[in-house]
């Protein structure tokens, strides 16, 4: 948020901010390397690693064999032997074979060895739907990782946050699952100073101040949520909008503070509702903010079904309309 804008900075997209952060950290830390499928000469299917191979060569930008188990396992091996690997899962739907290594080794290396070995790695995951892609290219599966101790799970939703949070993720001494909302990879540009300033991995960002209702969201849904807030403002409903940004560890204090003020909360996320990460936020409210709540908590989420192929996918994702309706209901209640 507070990245200093240098005179030579130009506005860049979220995906360009990712590339910029990778290049910055690779220049400054020789133990950082990038690996995955097509990350080399091709520069990644989303171009996140574009130019890195030319700049840093095949020893630092590594095309792996086509196997996500392999990527995860090599990454843990590299990280535990002094490297700082940044691995890419080509799409969200291909990360499931990585779960075993993430849960059994990455998240436990330090714990298991009482700190003798550690696993400072980042797994970058283009995440979420809405880009008219084929099957398994559109999944919001962050919930799989949020119950796993030893991980950090983050999801930036602006170019500046992407840059600063990726730097901290790489510098963090522990494994970080770094979800990138691919639908907003190129949504808008922002000036992002390439100054190596990291952002914390344990805070929520208040994107809009408000007094009547708290809208909590993360990832690409920040877009619809801000639009909904705008629309509701037109109706005289003043929404505070929070981008959770880091899911684990959750900065609940920021959310609680907002709800203490507004008394109402609508949580918006792309993943299916049941046992999505929104449940954790609602649960914390039920535990710690109950006496502040003036109305029932609402969740506006993906439905409890698989995101459909693209002809129907926009009907699956939470819309501005659905968010507005839930907000109005929350305002009417209590």
């Amino acid at each position: 948020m507070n990245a200093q804008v240098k005179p030579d900075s130009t506005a860049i997209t979220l995906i360009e901010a990712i590339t910029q952060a990778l290049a910055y950290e690779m220049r400054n830390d020789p133990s950082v390397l990038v690996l995955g499928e097509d990350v080399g000469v091709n520069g990644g299917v989303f171009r996140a690693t574009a130019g890195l191979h030319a700049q840093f060569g095949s020893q630092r930008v590594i095309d792996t064999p086509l196997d996500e188990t392999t990527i995860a396992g090599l990454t843990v091996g590299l990280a535990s032997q002094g490297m700082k690997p940044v691995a890419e899962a080509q799409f969200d739907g291909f990360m499931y074979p990585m779960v075993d290594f993430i849960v059994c080794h990455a998240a436990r290396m330090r714990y298991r060895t009482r700190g003798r070995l550690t696993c400072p790695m980042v797994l970058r995951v283009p995440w979420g739907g809405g880009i008219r892609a084929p099957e398994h290219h559109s999944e919001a599966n962050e919930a799989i990782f949020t119950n796993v101790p030893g991980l950090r799970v983050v999801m930036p939703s602006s170019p500046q946050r992407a840059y600063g949070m990726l730097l901290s993720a790489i510098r963090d001494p522990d494994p970080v699952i770094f979800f990138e909302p691919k639908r907003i990879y190129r949504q808008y540009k922002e000036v992002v100073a390439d100054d190596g300033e990291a952002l914390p991995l344990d805070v929520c960002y208040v994107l809009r101040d408000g007094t009547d209702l708290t809208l909590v969201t993360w990832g690409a849904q920040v877009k619809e949520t801000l639009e909904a807030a705008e629309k509701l403002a037109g109706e005289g409903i003043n929404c505070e909008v929070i981008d959770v940004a880091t899911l684990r560890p959750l900065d609940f204090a920021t959310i609680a503070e907002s709800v203490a003020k507004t008394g109402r909360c609508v949580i918006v996320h792309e993943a299916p509702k049941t046992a999505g990460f929104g449940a954790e936020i609602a649960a914390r409210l039920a535990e710690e903010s109950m006496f502040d709540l003036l109305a029932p908590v609402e969740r506006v989420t993906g439905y409890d079904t698989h995101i459909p192929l693209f002809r129907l996918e926009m009907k699956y994702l939470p819309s501005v309309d659905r968010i507005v309706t839930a907000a109005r209901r929350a305002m009417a209640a209590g």
Partner: protein
Amino acid sequence: MTLAASFEIEYLQYLGPDGVPVAEFPESLRDAALLLPLFKQMLYVRTFDTKAIALQRTGKLGTYAACLGHEATHVGIGAAMRPEDVFAPSYREYGAQFMRGVRPRDVLMYWGGDERGNDFEGPKNDYPWCVPISTQCLMASGAALAFKLRNEPRVAVACCGDGGSSKTDFYAGLNASGAFTSPLVLCVINNGWAISVPRGAQTGAKTLAQKGLAGGLYCLQVDGNDLVAVLEAMRRATERARSGQGGSVIEFMTYRLHDHTTADDARRYRGEQEVKDAWTREPFLRLRKYLVDQKLWDEAQEKAWIEECGKLIDVEINAYLECPVQPVEAMFDYLYGDMPEDVRAQREYAISLENRR
């Protein structure tokens, strides 16, 4: 030196790139007329492929994975299978699928973003297109195990790419087939590239065929642009499987003449010369040359057939384009056999949003 084991892997090629036989054809294929319908099928597939790419380019189709250059392998695999066998494709083996009754409109529906593309009217037990690379190989190994347990003379045939041969599921599939002596044929379609990653970066193994040795399977490498070699390899593998001798891994050497998919730009990572060279070895021209030499084919026939293919495929394209989008409840209706209450409530809600508009 005491040997623990030794292995030889055969390479099959019958029809050279120039359309001239390099070895005596296998007995079952000595009658060249047998090749004619398959040749026509290859042309049909290529026509379809071209039209599908055009549809994508004009915004009428989503991302599409072309099969240009793979036609001999795909059609040969389809030809070798029986209806009761089960096919587990990756995502570009249309040639094999058409021969099993999948319709071009199914392909278009799928890449057009509609799940109904997977609801084949033709081969009811075949697996749908499979995006998570090579998982179909292991699933097919499970199908093969089912056939074995039920004593059915059926074969499970799965395809994956050179990239897919690195996937752990590929190993799991072949190892299980070896462990259970199940009727599995794993077809590794080595087209040289896995998106931008060349075959050489996938593994240190000299051949991909030899990966089958890890599970004790029968291994073959064949010229995948030579329909005769493909048919012979598949004949051997399916016969072994059907007669209880177990599984095979066949590596088909071919080349991906197109971009990986329409979302890819291969110029970023591979040289033009390589593609040019590959065009001199592609499967269609050599077989045409051979059939023309055998007086089984000529230009007039070709012109007529291409025209007919175009018409047949246009019917399919129209069927696709005219098919209305599924209603919103379709995203709930096929989730469970018995729909839970929560899902039903969300279904009603989603429908109510539709009506509101």
